[in-house]
């Protein structure tokens, strides 16, 4: 027998053996525990595709807004918060009986609200000077109000108190004018 005949005979044997093999192999039962049950009765899905997309959008918006907030906050000038000790602007009153009217009160409130911003523009010495003097005026006002409670109809005391409020308002206005002047001079 020649080599070529031997090769053909071997090939035929191999082919015959291959034909006897099974064409499919079934997996054993419970290859994965409970899989048959899972296939039969699938569990409800927590996340639908729509829900997942919505969550992703919200997350994106939230992250973007947070980033914008952080950037903008860093760019904003530092706001002065808090009030120096004693710099409380009590509501105007005459022995807790009368007030000076909405017009005066509004003007005073507006100037008092701007005060912190204006004071920052002054030198430390000027700022301390203004604050000290405003506190002195407030102390005088408080003292006069105490006396007026004893004698509410004393016209002279009322006049003195009114004068003190006017002085306070005048000082607040001057501070406002001062800082405008400082800004103008710094533009030279």
């Amino acid at each position, binding site marked *: 027998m020649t080599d070529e005949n031997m090769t053909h005979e071997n090939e035929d044997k191999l082919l015959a053996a291959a034909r006897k093999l099974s064409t499919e192999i079934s997996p054993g039962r419970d290859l994965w525990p409970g899989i048959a049950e899972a296939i039969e009765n699938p569990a409800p899905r927590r996340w639908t595709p729509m829900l997942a997309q919505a969550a992703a959008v919200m997350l994106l918006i939230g992250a973007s807004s947070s980033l914008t907030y952080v950037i903008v906050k860093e760019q904003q000038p530092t706001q002065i918060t808090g009030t120096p000790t004693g710099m409380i602007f009590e509501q105007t009153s005459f022995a807790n009986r009368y007030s000076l009217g909405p017009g005066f009160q509004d003007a005073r409130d507006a100037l008092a609200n701007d005060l912190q911003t204006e004071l920052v523009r002054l030198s430390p*010495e000027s700022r301390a*000077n203004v604050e000290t*003097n405003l506190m002195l005026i407030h102390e*005088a006002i408080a003292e006069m109000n105490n*006396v007026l409670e004893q004698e509410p109809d004393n016209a002279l*005391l009322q006049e003195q108190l009114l004068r003190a409020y006017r002085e306070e308002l005048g000082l607040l206005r*001057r501070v406002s004018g001062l800082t405008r002047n400082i800004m103008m*001079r710094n533009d*030279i």
Partner: protein
Amino acid sequence: MKRIPIFVLSCLLSVPVIAEEVDKTLDAAADGHVEVSNISGSITVSGWSKNQVEVTGTLGRNVEELVFERDGDQITIRVKVPGNSGHRHGIDSDLHIKVPQGSSVDVGTVSADIDVTEVTGDQGLRSVSGDIATESTGADIEIESVSGNVDIVGDLAEGEVEASTVSGDVTLLRIAGEVEADTVSGDIIIDAGSFDRAEFSTVTGDIEYRAGLSKGGRLDVETINGGVDIEFVGEVSARFDIDTFNGQIRNCFGPTAERTSKYAPGWELEFTTGDGDGRVDISTLNGDVKICNE
């Protein structure tokens, strides 16, 4: 070794190390307007008989330039400095300016003293930190300082004067006419002079007045924390209204003060001298009042 002198030379050439001298002159109107701006240093302005404006002095080493120009009747003198804050050093400039006597002047500084002499036109003088001194010859004067003293010396010619400072004293010598002076922390001293209308106020400081009051004139004096000492020069014909919240009243004219309230330590006093055609109102919250005449 050869690199060292080159390096040193480069440094010297790149950094101005000395102030620049200034000596410039422009023709000007006899009664024109001169505006001066100098952030830091000093400014002296004096009037002379020439129809010219002359600027001499020294500019700080970091000053960009001195703007000195004329536009019609207006002369502008401005020390220009770099915009960035890193060059706030080396900008001190001392300017000596001569202007026609009849000029009106407007001077603005941040940190510089201002001294004006022999100028007969109106004056507007403003400084944030610096003393201001000037002379009054009857024209209108408006002075504003944040931190600095204000001194005005006059020749009794009547004019309108306004002087204001936050922290500093105001001194008015031989001023007449109408005057308004106020300070937050500081004294106000008025010596000689006579007024048709005078208003003085301090928050913390004393007011001393040694001057006259014109017939029908009006004097208003207010302090929050400070004493008032008034000595009239010459006759005074006025109605007096004086009150304190916490302070004594001493009166040389005769009438004695009365307590404002049994609950408050203050006093009040009203009286009239002469025809009573003038008006004197004095008020302190915490401070004594003394009122006399010579």
